[in-house]
Structures are given as structure tokens and as C-alpha cells.
């Protein structure tokens, strides 16, 4: 039997492979990586989200490079170059859509992956650093999402940068300098776009890829987290031995577990492509001309929850919250494996962990939902565009109808709805007369209060009278008008209605 000499025998492709392998010598480490045994229980559909995140990252890199062939990172031209991608270059729209939908999928899959490894206790000993690196990978992913939104240089991007700068400007002492570093100058301009381009295309993806390499390396070295079983406690002294035993009895990663990763990755890419083909690219929306102020800026959906939070903070809390909450959140995530690095891994024995995930998911969902219709924002066109319901005008006196005109003309509808149309910032006015008396309406209109501006200087006495006369008619017939309890009591000579004290005074019947 002739001696086997690599590179000199067999079909041509075998010879080529041998020629390359003798020089690169990578077969050994790769074999070791793909054939390493994993616990049987980890060959599960729950373990596919990490590899899917990596697949989506690769998709984003590839489609990003494709877009980079055309995109012009110039404030004067970026918007136009996206229009050319959308409408003139063959399938340019599809690449943009793939990149945009890929980003949404990536944020979603990364968050699911994070929730899964949290619920499976994967951050516990000895995988603490894998979790911490993962936390920073999440931040990088969100950084990619934000900077990517800026590169879609439209009105939302422009004013989104304004929001970013305004948040930076709240930092004590160096806030002003930070704003200028962030914007690359005194104001949002071409210099701002070029530095966000550099961040989105070089800095953040470079860091993200490096961290991904480290993350995957540690997963290979420390082994994939085993399926948690209630009662199997993680102890620093015994865990490694126990895990090695599990892995030893396990199956090789390829093909035992990898086929599910492959199926899911293919399904995810297909889902991105289907969404891209069906729904198309996102934006660019309005032209980024800051003098077009008739715009309602809004972030992409994964930042809508922040947008909602920012509308609910009282003014006093705004700056402390904005500056400390992200730091605290990151610190909690980083500290997690040090605080809870050992012990139970199973979610059956970690009710607080399960509750936290559910609580955060519900908060996120609700804040995102609120962010989609922004009930706190005035509806800028309601005063001129929303009709007054006809039943609120029937059988009204000329003065009351004048009041309805004042109500429209003074933009009350921007914040107050009638017949379901108008802003939701303030209470609906359809039944305002059941809540406020005539005197209280005068006071509320003229002096404002309770988050309503004072209209004293914007209304003439005649306008005020007409407006209030109209407002006190606004109640359904079956509900009584609001009454001033103090007046009623005063009418009873200071005796409350249910008092047993009897005085000579007669009760004034409500008007």
C-alpha cells in the first residue's frame, strides 16, 4: 500500500484542498470547534436565537456594503441618493428594504436571545463575561439602529439628531461641548451626517464584529449553557465538572445541534426578504430642510418607547432621569452575573426573573403602543380640520354657536377632542359641563392650570363669554350638570347636605 502523501493524490479538488490546508493549517481548530460535544438538551429550538443574530449581522454587513456603493454621505445629497436607490437603480429599493427590515429583525432577535439566555440562567458561572460582552453587543446593536436612522437623512433623522443633541445638552458642565462634538459643529449639518456615517459604517460595526468574535469564542471555550433543570444548583466548585460530564454524554455540535440553527437562520433571512418584498423600504420621509417646520418627528419603532417615556417625565425629573437611567440600566445588566452568578438556573425556581422579563415586555409593548399615536402631542391641524359634531350645535343660541367658533379658532381642538376627533392631550370636551361649572370653566379658560395654558391674554372678554356659554352646554341630556358643592353648602347656611343640624335656610336648587 503506497504511503499517503497529501496533495499528490485523489481528484483535483482534493488536491487543491490539501495544498491550501498545508499552508493555512486551519482544519484542526475548525474541526475541534464544530465537533465539540454539547449537552443533548441544548439541541433545542430555544437555542437558535444567538446564531440567528449572527446571521442577521452578516446580512446587515453585506446589504450595508451594497448600499454603500451608492449612498452619498453628504447632507446636500444623502436624501437624493436614497431616492435614486428607491426609484431608479434596479432593485435598489429591495436592498434598502432588506437592510431596513434586517435591522428591525436583528434588534428583535437580539432581544429575544437576551431574554432567553437570561431565563435559562446562562449568565451564571462561568459565563459571566459572555453575558457582559453580550450587553455591550446589545448597546452596539442599538447604536447601529440609531445611527442607521440618522443616515436615512430625512426630517425624522434631522429632528432625531436635535433630540439627541438636546439630551446631550443636559449633561452638567460639559454638555455644551458634548453637543458640539456630537454634531461636529454648532448645528446639525453636513459634518453631523459624515460623523454618523463613520460611526455607522466603521466604528460601531467594527466594535460589534470584534465583540461578536469574543462572544462566540467564549461560547466555544466554555461550552453552550445546558438546559436548566430545577434543583441542579450552579456551584463554583463543582459546575465545570458537572458540565463536562453532561457534554461528554452529549452529541457533537455538528450535525447534532447545528441543523436547527441552520433551519432557523434560513427562515429568518427568508422572513426578512418576504417583508422587504411585501412592505418595501422605509422612507426616506420628508426632505431634511429645517425650515419645513410642519413636521411631526418620530423615531423608528424600537426607540418609540424612549420617545414615550420622555413625554411622561415631569419637568423636574427630566434631566436627572435622562442622565442616570441609562447608566443605571447598564450597571444593573453588567452587575447581574456578579450578584446572581451561582444558584438556580431554572425559570421554575426564579419567579422574580420571569416576572422581570414579563414586566419589561409589557412596559415596552405599552410604551411602544402609546408612541404610535402619541396622545400627549397636540394635533396641529385639528383646529382647522376636525368638524364640530352636529349634535353639539343643534338648538344652540347664536352666542353659544359663536362660542363653538371661538373654540375652533383658538386651537382648543388641538388638545381637546370632540366627537372623538382632535388632540388627546387634554380631556375630551363632549361632556365637560358634567365636570366643571360655569365659574370653573371661566377660571380654567382664563388662568389655565393642570397642564393647560392660560388663555386670559389670547381671548377678549366677549370671546371668553361665548366660549364658556358654549362649553356649559356640552353634556349628554341624561347626565346632570356639574354643581359647585361649596355654593350649595353656602346656600344651606354652611350646613353640609347630610348634616343633622337643621337651620332655617332653604336649599338652593341647582341651576
Amino acid at each position, binding site marked *: 500500500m503506497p504511503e499517503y502523501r497529501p496533495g499528490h493524490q485523489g481528484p483535483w479538488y482534493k488536491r487543491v484542498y490539501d495544498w491550501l*490546508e*498545508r499552508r493555512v*493549517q486551519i482544519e484542526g481548530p475548525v474541526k475541534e470547534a464544530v465537533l465539540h460535544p454539547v449537552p443533548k438538551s441544548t439541541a433545542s429550538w430555544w437555542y437558535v436565537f444567538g446564531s440567528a443574530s449572527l446571521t442577521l449581522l452578516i446580512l446587515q454587513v453585506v446589504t450595508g456594503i451594497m448600499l454603500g456603493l451608492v449612498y452619498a454621505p453628504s*447632507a*446636500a*445629497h444623502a436624501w437624493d441618493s436614497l431616492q435614486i436607490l428607491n426609484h431608479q437603480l434596479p432593485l435598489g429599493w429591495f436592498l434598502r428594504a432588506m437592510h431596513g427590515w434586517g435591522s428591525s429583525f436583528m434588534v428583535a432577535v437580539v432581544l429575544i436571545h437576551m431574554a432567553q439566555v437570561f431565563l435559562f440562567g446562562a449568565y451564571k458561572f462561568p459565563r459571566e463575561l459572555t453575558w457582559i460582552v453580550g450587553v455591550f453587543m446589545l448597546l452596539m446593536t442599538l447604536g447601529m439602529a440609531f445611527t442607521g436612522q440618522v443616515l436615512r437623512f430625512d426630517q425624522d433623522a434631522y*429632528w432625531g439628531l*436635535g433630540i439627541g*443633541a*438636546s*439630551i446631550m*445638552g*443636559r*449633561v452638567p458642565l460639559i*454638555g*455644551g*461641548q458634548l453637543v*458640539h*462634538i456630537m*454634531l*461636529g*459643529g*454648532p*448645528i446639525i*449639518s*453636513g459634518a453631523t451626517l459624515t460623523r454618523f456615517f463613520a460611526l455607522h459604517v466603521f466604528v460601531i460595526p467594527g466594535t460589534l464584529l470584534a465583540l461578536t468574535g469574543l462572544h462566540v469564542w467564549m461560547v466555544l471555550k466554555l461550552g453552550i449553557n445546558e438546559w436548566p433543570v430545577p434543583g441542579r444548583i450552579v456551584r463554583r466548585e463543582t459546575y465545570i465538572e458537572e458540565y463536562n460530564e453532561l457534554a461528554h454524554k452529549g452529541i457533537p455540535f455538528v450535525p447534532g445541534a447545528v441543523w436547527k440553527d441552520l433551519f432557523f437562520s434560513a427562515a429568518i433571512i427568508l422572513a426578512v426578504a418576504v417583508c422587504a418584498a411585501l412592505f418595501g423600504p422605509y422612507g426616506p420621509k420628508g426632505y*431634511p*430642510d*429645517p*425650515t419645513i*417646520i410642519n413636521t*411631526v*418627528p418620530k423615531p423608528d419603532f424600537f426607540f418609540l418607547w424612549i420617545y414615550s417615556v*420622555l*413625554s411622561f*417625565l415631569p*419637568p*423636574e425629573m*427630566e*434631566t436627572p432621569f435622562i442622565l442616570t437611567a441609562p447608566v443605571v440600566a447598564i450597571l444593573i445588566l453588567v452587575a447581574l452575573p456578579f450578584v446572581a452568578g451561582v444558584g438556580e438556573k431554572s425559570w421554575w425556581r426564579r419567579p422574580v426573573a420571569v416576572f422581570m422579563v414579563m414586566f419589561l415586555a409589557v412596559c415596552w409593548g405599552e410604551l411602544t403602543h402609546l408612541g404610535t399615536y402619541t396622545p*400627549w*402631542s*397636540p394635533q*396641529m391641524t385639528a383646529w382647522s380640520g376636525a368638524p364640530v359634531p352636529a349634535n353639539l350645535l343643534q338648538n344652540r343660541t347664536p352666542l353659544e354657536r359663536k362660542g363653538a367658533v*371661538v373654540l375652533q379658532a*383658538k*386651537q*382648543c381642538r*388641538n388638545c381637546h377632542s370632540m366627537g372623538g376627533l382632535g388632540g388627546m392631550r387634554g380631556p375630551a370636551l363632549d361632556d365637560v359641563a358634567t365636570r366643571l361649572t360655569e365659574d370653573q370653566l371661566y377660571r380654567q379658560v382664563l388662568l*389655565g*392650570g393642570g*397642564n393647560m*395654558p*392660560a388663555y*386670559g*391674554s*389670547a*381671548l*377678549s372678554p366677549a*370671546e371668553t363669554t361665548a366660549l364658556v356659554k358654549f362649553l356649559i352646554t356640552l353634556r349628554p341630556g341624561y347626565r346632570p350638570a356639574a354643581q359647585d358643592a361649596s355654593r350649595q353648602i353656602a346656600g344651606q347656611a354652611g350646613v353640609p347636605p347630610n348634616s343633622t343640624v337643621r337651620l332655617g335656610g332653604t336649599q338652593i336648587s341647582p341651576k
Partner: protein
Amino acid sequence: MDEKLPPPSHEEQEQRLHQERVSRRTFLMNVGIALNAVVVAVVAVPVVAYLFGPVLRRKEYLQWIAIGNATDYSPGETRLVTFQNPFTDPWDGDTAKVPAYVRCVDAGNFTVFAINCAHLGCPVRWFSESQLFMCPCHGGVYYADGSRASGPPERGLFTYDVKIDGGKLMINAGQMPTLRNRAGSGPCPGSTEPKQPALVARIEACPSTDPATKAPGTNASTIG
């Protein structure tokens, strides 16, 4: 792989390393590391200065810009104007344009507001009928004099320094106003605090108030 020389054993490596630890070569390697550290430090200075360029040029950002004749504005009027930012690059495109609101309190007395909401910088809109500025983002509302009326802002609208030079209305502008980068260094808006119940005025809009005129409302009755 078959042809690779076997690597030195662990003991051999340790032995060699020990021999090398105090040798001329080790010394030269340490000198090499120090040399690189010095070079990195020297090169870092211009790199860091380059990165901080936008901060180092801060003094150039504000300039006096003419925004029309003082006589163009009639008393009681608040009007949206556009000016060209003085500090621009050729590739800025339309982002070099900046909108602002000019309020002519009475002849020769102007307040110029930045477009940016004091909350998070969104563009506020002026409604002359109700004499209010409203922000589309989080619902900040300001009175005609720029003072905070309601919503999340913790202060009134930002104002530019104003002067009238040779009949021209000039503003000192050029940077986006934020809580640390005032649009100008002039007095805060909100000099006429509206009469709000103390309960609601949780935040004092601006401590440095000087007596100014009242916001003109729609004085002429439309009802008769």
C-alpha cells in the same frame, strides 16, 4: 500538518523564556515598547485635537446676522423667518438654513425665538389665534412671550441676542440652542410670567426677569 516541526515542550519554553528574561534582547524589546508608547502619545495629540475640533472652534460659532429691516415687522406680530447659518460647509445643503420666530413686541422692541423646543429640540409651531407656540413631539406649549405654558419643557423658548443696526434687525446666532448652549447670552424669555396658579407653575421659567410688555392678545373682539 504532518510536516510541521513539533513545538518546543512546555519545559523547554519556560527554560528559554527564563534565559531571555534578563538579556540584551529583552532590554531592547522593552526599549522598543517604550519607543512605541512615546510615538503613540505624540501622535495622539493631533488626533485628539482633531476630534475635539468642533469644541476648539466654539468661539467662531456665534455671529451677527441680519434678518431683514426692523420696519418689516408690524407690532404685535410673530413671524417665522429663515436665515443662513454663518458657519457652514459647501455640502450642508438645506441644513445650512435655520428657521426662527421674530416677535415684534412694539416698534423697535423685538424678541427672536429659536425654533427648537426647550424640551428636546423639536420645531415649535406658532398659532397666532391662540397666541401659543406648540411642539409636535411631546406637547410642550409656550406663550407668545416664549415663557413655558404647559408640557414637559422646564423653561421658556430660547432667545437670540437682538440688536438694530442701521435699520437692520440683527441676531447673534449660529449654534443649535440646548440647555448648555444658549442661543444667545441675553435675558431669558418669560419676562412676563403669566398669571398662573402657583400650584401649576412648578418650575420657574427664568429667574432673570426684567419688566417688559404684556403679550398682546386678540384685542379686537371678533364677536361685537
